[in-house]
């Protein structure tokens, strides 16, 4: 009995040691490593390949983790828990939230480096006078048109609707335009029409930063713009419909059921697999209206404030991620516009379509606001959009959305 008890106690001790051992192993390895978080999709896979390239060139273990859902929230939560990656890839409109949670560091970019980028790309990643991210790809929406049905680009929204209506009357198409709205609206895709009708979301301060106290949704221009949008809606010409969503625009356009689609270059890889003949032009304005301005969104690499290997992360972001060959690799995977001028020039030679997207962005694009207050705008404005497209009165609907937004901006 005595020996049993002894051996039993030694078994307990062994398990106790096992508890110690798991912790002791944590700081054993000195091999340099870099942890990168990125979103899913083609861009994520390309980042994995590029991470491996950086690892080989520098003798570093690079681990690229793809976070398919809620990358921004997960990054903020992980930073707070002390488990942040070294580098995170994300859209420029995250910057406001990432900065207010003290999760990313500003980058010191030399004027030479800045000069190599498209102006809008650098503007987009600048927040409170500091550059926070190394931009790599950028996007804006454009008008895709089926060239078999519509040989020439429409000059105005009215022209577009007239052409679409004629095709519909002739029984050649089912819909006039594939522009995603859905039951709860989509302010991102409607922005060219909204701005052309005289609306804006936030004004800018003298410094160029967005001003949360200048809410354009509350101004008369917003109501006027939505009056024009309503005329295109379900009770009007029927060009805009809540049944058209981000999930079905591609099939509507690629099967020839809709002669026009308003969407971004991310549709190009799928479109190339179909037989539809198409071309790209800027989203046209209302006749006699303001320019139609699509939002510019920029994808950038950020150095995490609470990463474990900051010097290496800065090296990766500032010196590796800004290389033209990295830019072209990311373009090849995502069909997005390279933010680097040199990479764009290379890409343009073989891919005229991406060049057209880039030109539309440079000429008409408007940087999507990155201030935290922007997060408040999407939901109420989207619902107002859906209601107006369904036939609601633009005056009271937009006023209600504006007051809901203002109540939440602090």
């Amino acid at each position, binding site marked *: 009995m005595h020996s049993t*008890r002894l051996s039993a106690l030694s078994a307990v001790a062994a*398990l106790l040691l096992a*508890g110690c051992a798991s912790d002791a192993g944590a700081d054993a390895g*000195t091999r340099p490593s870099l942890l990168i978080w990125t979103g899913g999709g083609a861009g994520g896979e390309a980042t994995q390949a590029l991470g491996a390239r950086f690892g080989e060139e520098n*003798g570093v273990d690079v681990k690229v983790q793809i976070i398919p859902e809620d990358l921004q929230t997960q990054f903020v939560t992980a930073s707070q828990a002390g488990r942040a990656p070294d580098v995170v890839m994300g859209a420029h409109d995250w910057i406001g939230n990432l*900065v207010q949670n003290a999760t990313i560091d500003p980058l*010191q970019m030399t004027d030479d480096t800045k000069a190599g980028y498209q102006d809008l790309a650098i503007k987009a990643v600048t927040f409170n006078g500091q550059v926070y991210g190394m931009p790599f790809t950028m996007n804006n929406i454009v008008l895709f048109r089926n060239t078999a049905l519509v040989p020439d680009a429409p000059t105005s929204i009215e022209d577009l609707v007239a052409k679409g209506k004629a095709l519909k009357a002739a029984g050649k198409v089912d819909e006039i335009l594939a522009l995603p709205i859905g039951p709860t609206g989509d302010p991102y895709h409607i922005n060219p029409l909204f701005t052309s009708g005289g609306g804006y979301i936030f004004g800018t301060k003298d410094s160029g930063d967005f001003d949360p106290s200048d809410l354009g949704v509350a101004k008369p221009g917003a109501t006027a713009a939505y009056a024009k949008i309503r005329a295109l809606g379900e009770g009007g010409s029927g060009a805009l419909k809540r049944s058209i969503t981000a999930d079905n625009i591609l099939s509507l356009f690629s099967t020839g059921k809709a002669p026009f689609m308003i969407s971004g270059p991310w549709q190009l890889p799928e479109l190339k697999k179909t037989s539809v003949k198409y071309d790209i032009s800027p989203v046209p304005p209302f006749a006699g209206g303001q320019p139609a301005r699509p939002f510019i969104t920029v994808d950038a690499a950020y150095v995490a404030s609470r990463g474990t290997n900051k010097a290496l992360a800065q090296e990766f972001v500032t*010196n590796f991620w800004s290389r033209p060959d990295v830019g072209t690799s990311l373009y090849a995977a995502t069909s997005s516009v390279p933010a680097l001028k040199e990479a764009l020039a290379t890409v343009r030679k073989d891919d005229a379509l991406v060049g057209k997207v880039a030109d539309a962005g440079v000429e008409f694009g408007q940087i999507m606001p990155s201030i935290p207050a922007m997060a408040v705008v999407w939901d109420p404005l989207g619902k107002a959009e859906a209601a107006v497209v369904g036939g609601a*009165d633009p005056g009271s609907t937009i006023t*209600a959305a504006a007051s809901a937004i203002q109540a939440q901006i602090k």
Partner: protein
Amino acid sequence: MARTDVPVRTTTPPKPRLGLGADGTASPLGLIIKIGVLGVVAAIAVWAAFPLIATGNWIGLIILVAVSALIFYVYLSPRVIPAKYLIPGTLFLIVFQVLPVLFTLSTAFTNFGDGHRGSKDEAIAAVEGASVQQVPGSTVYTLTLATDGDPATGDIVFLLTDPATKAAFVGTADGLEPLANAQQSADGKVTSAGGYEVLDIGQISARSADIVEFSVPTAKGAIKNQGLSRAFEGTPQQAYNNDCDCITDRTTGQTWTANGDDGVFVDGQGQALAQGWKVNVGFRNFAEVVTNPVIRASFLKILLWNIGFALGVVLITFGLGLLVALVLNKPELRGQRLYRSLIILPYAMPAVAMMLVWRDMFNTDFGLINRLFGLHVNWFGSAPSSMFAILLVQLWLGYNYMFLVSTGALQAIPADLTEAAQVDGARPFHAFRTITFPLLLVALAPLLISSFAFNFNNFTAIYLVSEGAPFPPDNPQAGATDILITYTYRLAFGGAGAQYGFAAAISVFIFLIVATISVVSFRRTHALEEIN
């Protein structure tokens, strides 16, 4: 007084007061299991102790030690038999129920959320760190990271080259000095310098924390590295001043004063800096739930639909599930097993994906349902049709579960009861209503109540199908099919980032509602058991 020796009784050996077998664990298997479990407890305790020690959380450590000691005492002692049965359940109750509730409650009294996650010191550090800008006209140096002495322990130094003049410098914690004996590569980077050890990438990685801390003081600021091969002279534009408890901008002179009630630095115009900190706000979150005009205007309507939704889902899924179970419960039915497996099939598919498929089937112009029936209904455009669509999806997703549990319960009811009723001349439906159904309810009532509680907070059922639509044009916050949890999710997370404090306060209210309904229902089921 002389002591008298009491003779020791030697007939039974004294029982040990503590020990592995002291409580009569006699069988070797029992003993081994006990050793294993106690060993795991010890291992978990040691594993959990290290982070607690590392962060200096002494209260947590004391609790950890006390709980582990209690577990060991209870299972090694021959007494405290009831505690042996109570401890596992109690511990799990505390860890998985009481602690989350306490945590939610304590969060409800703070402004915890985006922009208010850390302490004031962290906010100050973030403000100062984010305002570091390159000194105008200063040099951007080519950098080589090195140490003074051993690469693993020596002081970090920067070996710097001015790219224009190729002049070399050494930057230490004392300042910047010219470097005489430097070997430089073609691009000017210092490759070696007497007395300093140039670090390779592995050594840099190992010293990462020291490099982040290190900077070379200069007259106008400090030289910091940016990556591994560049360094710049920077200075924070904004600095905290203890005297005024404020942050001042060096160039513009603008000040932001700390506001301890809200956890932000605000300037004269009431504009706050982005980085704030977490503070206790007392009952403010609760007060906001009660006084918020948007919440007040829509609360009752949403609560009614919420109860109607949860109750409706339970009733229709149970009704259809029971009906199918009764039909398939006839022993003479052929292919019974095949039918049963077919009915259970949808239950095995991921509900989230199924909800998205259903959502697309309800699309006005392109959805299967409208096309199949030749309709043109905007399902999520009006309140009744949107509610109908949501209930239909839940019926399809949920009746199989009710079928499953009803079949089980039906088979547990002795057949002689219904046979006896038939002998007595009761018609089948009468027998079902008076005998089978009440007995079924006794078995299934707790399941129905838990199904109600689950559906009361069934976020995905609403969010993935209708997102709360339709929304009245004049109120984008409260949709006709919103339930409390989707509505509050929008208020707490749809706005200016996540507001966990506010969300926690709302969860406390929802918890109270669900708890009240559940307690009342469980009271009622006691009445049911009287039938037994």
